[in-house]
């Protein structure tokens, strides 16, 4: 039965559309702004001349235009490449490491016959309830870093490449493991039994039955791990700075260092000119290009995984 739209429905619809479009534009605008900033001259950036499109020129003659100076400096700066490589390394190896132990652990936890299953679950979930805090965590990173250094024949954690500590020790997430466990529990046992009758070992069952049947969840979890690795700042900063190891900086730490020390954006401007382009007064526009370059990989993979995470989140979020 086709009926006429009531006036209240029409109003509601209009409100919904307007609200959503405004909100979407609000989410988009900051990125557009920063993108415009990267293609603007440093004078225009420094004097807040940008609104929506790139602005070039200096003092009194600002106009619409386009320059790639900021990228030139960014690409010519060693530290940028080092930190970018660090981020790629940490994101890639770190995600694989987290995925490996999470999938193995979640598979074992999904087995009802595992003795002490409740104990192991509690062991995992307790870390979601209570965290030791910043200082104990830091002291522990230092202790385990020192231990790692001793194993490979060094004195203390300054002697090892701290990227390895970041890869091994950070990015843990109990929620992701539970997400995987729930997904594995949803795999019908008949299929597993069939595989076992055919003589599959535990590992073969996992590789050939469980993993292919939980692709969506694994993709989601891999995405969560990868993003948190790519975006990790606080601990990478604490650890690499305490050990005076700026060559282990990920790109996030570099961006923040630039903001704190070369620009007055945070109000903590030290003006230490430790970045080689800073004394030319272009730190702010180069900063914009760093921001853009650090977001690009996320923007590239984002459309591909978008359909997965909506599914994955809904599957694993709440368990009755």
């Amino acid at each position, binding site marked *: 039965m086709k*009926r006429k739209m*009531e006036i*209240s*429905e029409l109003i509601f*619809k209009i409100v*919904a*559309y307007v609200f959503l*479009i405004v909100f*979407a534009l609000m*989410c*988009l605008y900051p990125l557009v702004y920063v993108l415009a*900033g990267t293609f603007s001259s440093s004078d225009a950036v*420094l*004097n*807040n*001349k*940008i*609104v929506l499109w790139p602005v070039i020129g200096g003092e009194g003659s600002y106009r619409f235009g386009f320059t790639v100076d900021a990228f030139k400096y960014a690409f010519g700066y060693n530290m940028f490449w080092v930190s970018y490589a660090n981020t790629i390394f940490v994101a890639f190896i770190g995600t694989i490491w987290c995925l490996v132990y999470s999938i*193995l*652990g979640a598979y074992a936890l999904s*087995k009802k016959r*595992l*003795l002490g299953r409740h104990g*192991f679950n509690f062991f995992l979930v307790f870390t*979601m*309830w*209570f*965290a030791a*805090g*910043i*200082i*104990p*965590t830091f*002291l*522990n*990173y230092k*202790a*385990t870093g020192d231990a790692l250094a001793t194993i490979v024949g060094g004195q203390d954690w300054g002697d090892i490449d701290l990227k390895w500590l970041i890869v091994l*020790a*950070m990015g*843990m997430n109990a929620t992701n493991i539970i997400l995987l466990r729930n997904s594995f529990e949803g795999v019908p046992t008949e299929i597993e039994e069939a595989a076992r009758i055919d003589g599959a070992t*535990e590992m073969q069952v*996992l590789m050939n039955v469980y993993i292919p049947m939980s692709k969506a969840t694994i993709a989601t979890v891999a995405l969560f791990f990868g*993003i948190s690795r790519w*975006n990790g*700042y*606080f601990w990478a900063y604490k650890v690499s700075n305490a050990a005076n190891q700026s060559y282990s900086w990920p790109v*996030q730490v570099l*961006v*923040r260092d630039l*903001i704190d020390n070369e620009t007055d*954006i945070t*109000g903590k401007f030290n003006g230490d000119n430790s970045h080689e382009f800073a004394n030319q007064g272009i730190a702010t526009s180069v*900063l914009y290009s760093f921001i853009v370059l*650090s977001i690009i990989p996320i923007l590239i993979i984002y459309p591909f995984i978008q359909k997965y995470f909506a599914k994955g*989140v*809904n599957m694993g*979020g*709440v368990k*009755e």
Partner: protein
Amino acid sequence: MFKIKCDDFLTCDEATGTYSMSAEQQVRDQTEKNRWKNIGLTILKDWRLYLMLLPMVLVYVFWRYMPMTQLLGAFKDYNTPGANGNTENMKWFGLNNFMNIFVGSNANLFWPAFRNTFIIAFYNLLFGFPMPIILALFFNEVKSNVVRSTVQVLVYLPKFLSTVIVTSIALILLNGKSGGELGALSKIIAVFGPNNEALQNALNSGIFFEARYFRSLYVITELWEHAGYDSIVFFAAVIAVSPTSYEAAQIDGAGKIQQMRYVVLPSILSTVVIMLIMKIGGLLSVGYEKVYLLLSTGNMSASQIVATLANSWGDGKGIAAEMTNNLIGMILVIGANTVSRKAANVSLY
């Protein structure tokens, strides 16, 4: 002499006067032995599963449980001469660290930080919780798939940007006067915002460094980051409502508001309650990374939370402060979980 009644598990050999295990007890004993044997056998049989569990357990022991041993530092004197920052060499300090932050010389730093943690978390809940629900209801209203998925792609996006990038962009857009002009968003606020002097002055000098505006800005950036993504769960609940329910309501003459009130809200209520309980459970775990990145001398009176305060202290009283905060947080989580199990028969863990 008195005789112990022990026929149950002992038999007495009258001739020699020696005691031995009764037949019943032997059976019992054997099952008891077998129990452990069986457990051992099961573990042995499933050794592959335990091997699979091992890497995860080791990672969690090393980097989640071992830090907890450092909590002992809360009961140690960091000013012990010759300790050299090594907790083991420090003298025991009893509850002095706790006394120091609760009633002692640092109480005037700890309690404001505790209050800030709570207020920021509360505002976040108050404004951050309804927003995703509203978004989900509105998403449901958009029948065009192209428009809806475009909007969804855009509003989920901020969630995937790092805290450093989000805070950097926020600071850039709300920049104070530089070269005679305000940052792009500051300009808009200056024009459309209330025309009071305090606000304009704050905008000129960088509104983020002003304590009185910090919480609002923090909550807005949180909304910007999370509202879209958090709407996924609610949207899934909203589209699960059967179209026939709407039709039935429409035939009964329900307008849009009434449909919302009597059809949609009751259907998504359980999801809403669960998410609310979950949020309340996480109330005190304010994301310290973001606060740390936005902290400055100007806004400290509103922005200093327990975690950042502890981080700046870096000693026994810092550990004590954060431990207090996290313990209360844990009680909230467990309490929320218990409530949800009792009320909705849903347990999150």
